[in-house]
């Protein structure tokens, strides 16, 4: 109850943050003096230090809780703090998920200067994942935290379905990087489903999507983190090879299955019983086939993405403007869009616009080809992964999927025994 009261208090405290309404001025003179336009000031340097301090402190706290203390309660408190601070107080920005785009753009864009704070927000969770696993996801990420806090009862999803759905974050990540490096859009920020809650206002459709995700989070663990988050694949890669990995218990597993049922993200794998028999040669042949198919799949998807690059490039505002100009030229309309009005009003030249669009479309061709190849690689590797048998004699954590929420600790009877012994 205390925990719930804390969540409620935090939400109420933050409710004072209002969204700014925008509306055109009256088009007649009434003598009213309009106030000067107020632009949002960039984050003050102090707050950036506080942000980084909070990030490191909370991740360290989570790492201590799951590795040393093997308890969940601190993670809940970290979640509350994260939602309150990174979510409501800092309005969900800077966030590590979105920083992927800034880093990508900085890698290809000579004119883009990457802020150090953004770089740290990108690199620190990955570093912690390499050291301790996905401690950032546990409760430091406000998106994960808010889903964790509303989670009540877990209805498990079929693993064959979740395996397929786990491709989505990779595809999302690839597209996010593609649109970032082509300077088209930061789609992660643009289609952020929870930012509307944190800022108490925003696009209705996204808020609705966020509400549906939260509702889903009540009955299944972290749907956003598992099936959408484009930062999760990167953390998974490093978490898989983490130096200090989280363990359910230090005692011997008794295969009671309780932890498996408790895990909200289905990251605990049961012992492999190998009930379905298959000839070894058949498995090897399949694996070899996928290795052969992999480059073809990469080439095919690269080819398709390259062909689709002109359509994809419409995400860029200059290309959209050029499309509008083309349509207007082909079928002139009396009422034109603001973009066209601005373009023609400022004496924009179609030839110059065309040159810009050509450059953008060349970029799109190049990066779309790479993106297609990467998507082919992801799908191919997924097929290879699903073709490899791994033997397990007891319940084990799949560290790539584990979000370090710590829920399994209290379910494990071995841990209870251990604590009882310690208490005695």
């Amino acid at each position, binding site marked *: 109850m205390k925990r719930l009261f804390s969540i409620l208090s935090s939400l109420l405290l933050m409710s004072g943050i209002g969204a700014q309404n925008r*509306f055109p001025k009256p088009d*007649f003179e009434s003598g009213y003096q309009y106030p000067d336009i107020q632009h949002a000031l960039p984050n003050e340097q102090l707050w950036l230090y506080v942000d980084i301090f909070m990030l490191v402190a909370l991740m360290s706290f989570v790492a201590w809780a799951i590795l040393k203390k093997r308890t969940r309660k601190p993670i809940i408190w970290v979640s509350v703090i994260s939602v309150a601070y990174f979510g409501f107080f800092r309005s969900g920005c800077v966030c590590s998920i979105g920083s992927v785009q800034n880093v990508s753009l900085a890698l290809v864009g000579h004119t883009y200067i990457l802020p150090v704070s953004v770089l740290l927000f990108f690199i620190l969770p990955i570093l912690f994942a390499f050291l301790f696993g996905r401690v950032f996801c546990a409760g430091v990420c406000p998106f994960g935290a808010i889903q964790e806090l509303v989670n009540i009862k877990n209805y498990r999803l079929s693993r064959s379905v979740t395996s397929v759905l786990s491709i989505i974050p990779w595809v999302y990540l690839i597209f996010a990087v593609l649109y970032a490096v082509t300077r088209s859009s930061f789609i992660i920020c643009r289609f952020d489903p929870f930012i509307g*809650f944190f800022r108490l206002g925003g696009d209705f459709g996204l808020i609705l999507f966020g509400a549906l995700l939260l509702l889903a989070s009540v009955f299944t663990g972290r749907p956003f983190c598992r099936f959408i988050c484009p930062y999760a694949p990167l953390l998974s890669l490093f978490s898989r090879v983490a130096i200090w990995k989280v363990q359910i218990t230090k005692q011997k597993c008794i295969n009671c299955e309780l932890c498996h*049922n408790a895990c909200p993200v289905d990251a605990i794998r049961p012992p492999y019983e190998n009930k379905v028999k298959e000839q070894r040669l058949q498995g090897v042949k399949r694996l070899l086939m996928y290795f052969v198919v992999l480059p073809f799949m990469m080439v095919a998807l690269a080819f398709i993405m390259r062909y689709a690059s002109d359509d994809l490039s419409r995400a860029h505002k200059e290309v959209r403007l050029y499309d509008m100009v083309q349509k207007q*030229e082909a079928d*002139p309309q009396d009422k034109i869009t603001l973009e066209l009005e601005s373009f*023609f009003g400022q004496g924009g030249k*179609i030839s110059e616009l065309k040159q810009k669009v050509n450059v953008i479309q060349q970029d799109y061709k190049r990066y779309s080809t790479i993106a297609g190849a990467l998507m082919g690689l992801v799908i191919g590797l997924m097929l290879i992964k699903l073709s490899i*048998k791994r033997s397990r004699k007891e319940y084990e954590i799949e560290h790539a999927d584990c979000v370090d929420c710590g829920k399994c600790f209290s*379910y494990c009877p071995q841990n209870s025994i251990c604590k009882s012994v310690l208490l005695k």
Partner: protein
Amino acid sequence: MKKIIARNIAIITAIFMITLSIMLITNYFQAKDVSPLQTQVVETLKKLNDQNADNPQLQEQIRQLDLMARKAYFINMDHLMRGVYLLLGMLVVFIVSIRIYFAQHKDIPDKEIDLIDEWAIQSQARKYVGLIATGLTAVALLFVVFSMPFMQASKNNTETALAQKDTNSSIVGNTINEAPSLPEETIETNPVENTGSIESEEESVSVEETPLSSKESTTEEIDVASVETSEKAETTAPVSVPKVTSNAFRGNDANGITQAKNIPVKWDLQGGSNIAWKSEIPRGGQSSPVINGNRVFITGADAQARELYCYDLNTGKLLWTLAAVNIAGSPSQVPKTTEDTGLASASVSTNGKQVCAIFATGDVICANMEGKQLWAKNIGVPDNHYGYASSLLVFKNQLFIQYDNRNTHKLIALNTENGKELWSKERADKIAWSSPSIAYVNNQPQLILMSDPSITAYNPTTGDQIWRVECLMGEVGASACSADGIIFGASEYAKMVAINGTDGSVLWESMDYLPEASSPVATHDNIYLATSYGVVASFDTKTGELKKEHETGEEFYSSLMLVEGKIYLFSNGGKMHIFSADDEFKLLDSFETGENTYATPAFTDGRIVVRTDQSIYCVKAN
């Protein structure tokens, strides 16, 4: 007990949330497309305010409505936002309740939903991934194979069109570079003219705005030389500013009548007899010249550029050029037109303060007398198999455009000062090449339009239809004329009709001789017309009876002009015919001028300005 209460609260809040969500979503979609500041009432009032800017009560009414609309909008937005907060609050209550309900709950092993073996799960997942990847690839490949050729073809067409436009733009750009790009800079100022002449023009405008029955016949010329000489050393000769204007195609009100005096009756273009000046027009066209003060306006166009020219009436010097460029909606590729119509067949019109021009691209430009562009817009590319040819008509500060094409059938009134639409009327008529004219009925102006199938009169102020007579057919190229409140309209393959402007009743009809492109002109007693097959005839305005006819062996596209009791008429071959405008309708003289002439000449005191198919020249008695 505690669990039951929590469960019930959870159920109630769930029902509440679902209901509230439905209401909010409905409200959102209802309010989404509503633009409170563009309601019909406010827009109508704003238009009224544009027409009558000095009405404080109306402005106050608009302010109040605007304020109410804004309040309503923001109240609605606030309600929506409060609803969202309420929903969030309910969500919190729901989560708290359900958490209490599940407080003691532990996830214990239940029925396994997955297959019993991990390898089977992996195999199934692999199948799903494989199927999805194959499906996506197949769909994408189909898309590439079937869609791309069409897309590329379409893209190529558009790009070709745009490339053409770029070429056009660059050519125009070059022209602009040679003659500076900004309209202000393109003016080659005439040292002879200055404020004095402009004031005189304004005087002439005030005269022209009165009906023809007013004192327009005054032929005095304002000699501003006495003012000018002391100020301008280079001014060596007195410069006269003619007071009689010819503000549109076929003179003021586009009625074929001018009050100009001392008009030469003989000239020779080749020999130079009575020719004041002759100038080349940079680009071709069939539009007729327009005179206001010392300025002559005319248009020219080709695939590269559409331009409005201003010439000095006294010297023939090109004072300024204004190109129709950078107009939103202007097509990249000029519409196809026949060679004899071209892109600049519609004549310009002026009120002495603004001069407006239209081209077959649908581009309308308007400049002040110094050539500074005031506004420009494209009113839609006309679908016209010969090319758009209806001339403009400026009446006070209104610019009338008869926009009867295949794709548009409307009459548009624009404010000459800013190009804002004053009103627009959809017409139930077909494509036409006729031009609007003003007729005075009981001293009240009526805007007369001819088209297939009607002659229609509109109130020029409001655009309301006054009467409509369906009597025409086919391709209507001639325009109406009027005298004594009677409107005459005639078109080849149809008939000539006399209509009482008071009630729109048909007085008589005649089918003896009918014009194709040349517009008739009427006096109190007679109406005169010229056919495209060489007959020039006069009819009784009271009965429609044929009075006289002349077989000239010529072809006539130029319209008849009534000047000093004479009818002036050019044949296409450039032969001038002068008839007496009376019952006798004698051919007083006819002579070759030397160049083909399709346009209608403009008259002012002592001068005629003629556009031929090669040049523009001014006739003035030596």
